[in-house]
């Protein structure tokens, strides 16, 4: 049950961030850069808060057994930030496995050399720098579906 709540919470956070980003882009397209920029700021804040809540979640669960590395069956706490890993779901399936593996391998190297904080910052930087284009293209696809575009157009008419 607790695991289910945790999974639901992770999914709701992702859903919220997607809604934020899609609405930000839609407003940007249909209402102009000022409104869009404002919403993009909100999106940034949402991502920040999600990251923060992710950290709190990890802390509150610290009494529970740590992550078990299935490959070797060892208890292992050198894991990349969960939400950052989650964002990598935007990467096309055919290369996600390799990308996640490469990032985790380097994350562990940095973790051993410079500590957790440094490794977390490095991981997040890689995610933001590398995979923002995939996130944008996914949003564009969603906007391209027309539903959100139609809502944006409807809001624009109301405002005018």
């Amino acid at each position: 049950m607790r695991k289910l709540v945790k999974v639901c919470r992770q999914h709701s956070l992702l859903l919220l961030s997607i809604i934020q980003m899609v609405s930000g882009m839609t407003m940007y397209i249909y209402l102009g850069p000022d409104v869009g920029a404002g919403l993009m700021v909100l999106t940034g804040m949402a991502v920040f808060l999600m990251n923060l809540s992710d950290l709190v979640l990890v802390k509150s669960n610290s009494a529970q057994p740590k992550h078990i590395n299935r490959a070797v069956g060892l208890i292992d706490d050198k894991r990349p930030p969960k939400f950052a890993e989650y964002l990598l779901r935007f990467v096309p399936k055919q290369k996600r496995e390799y990308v996640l593996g490469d990032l985790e391998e380097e994350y562990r190297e940095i973790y051993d050399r410079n500590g957790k904080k440094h490794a977390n910052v490095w991981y997040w930087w890689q995610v933001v720098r590398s995979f923002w284009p995939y996130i944008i293209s996914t949003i564009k696809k969603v906007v391209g579906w027309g539903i959100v575009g139609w809502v944006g157009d409807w809001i624009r008419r109301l405002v005018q």
Partner: protein
Amino acid sequence: MNDKKLYLGEFEEIVLLAVLRLGSNAYGVTIRQTVEEVAGRPTSIGAIYTTLERLEQKGFVSSWQGEATPERGGRAKRYFKIEGAARQALNEAELIRARLREGLNGGLQPVGSAI
């Protein structure tokens, strides 16, 4: 193959040379580290994969799935290997540069010097 595809971008050339240098140990992590350490060019893993995919489409590299290791969370590696066309393209790029440099008569300033 279309002749146009034989031309290499600057970053593509760097990545190809890194793959060539690494030999049988060329996969995402080692390629990124080589580009960063040897070429002195900070880069992300995403940029490396995007470039490698483009190179694979051009027929310059081929890839295969490697072993899964515990430090990768049980995930597999993807190894890359240089193909013959890539060697040809690298040589051609070198030749073009040499030809363009000919006749400059020392017009190039050494790196770091004032212009």
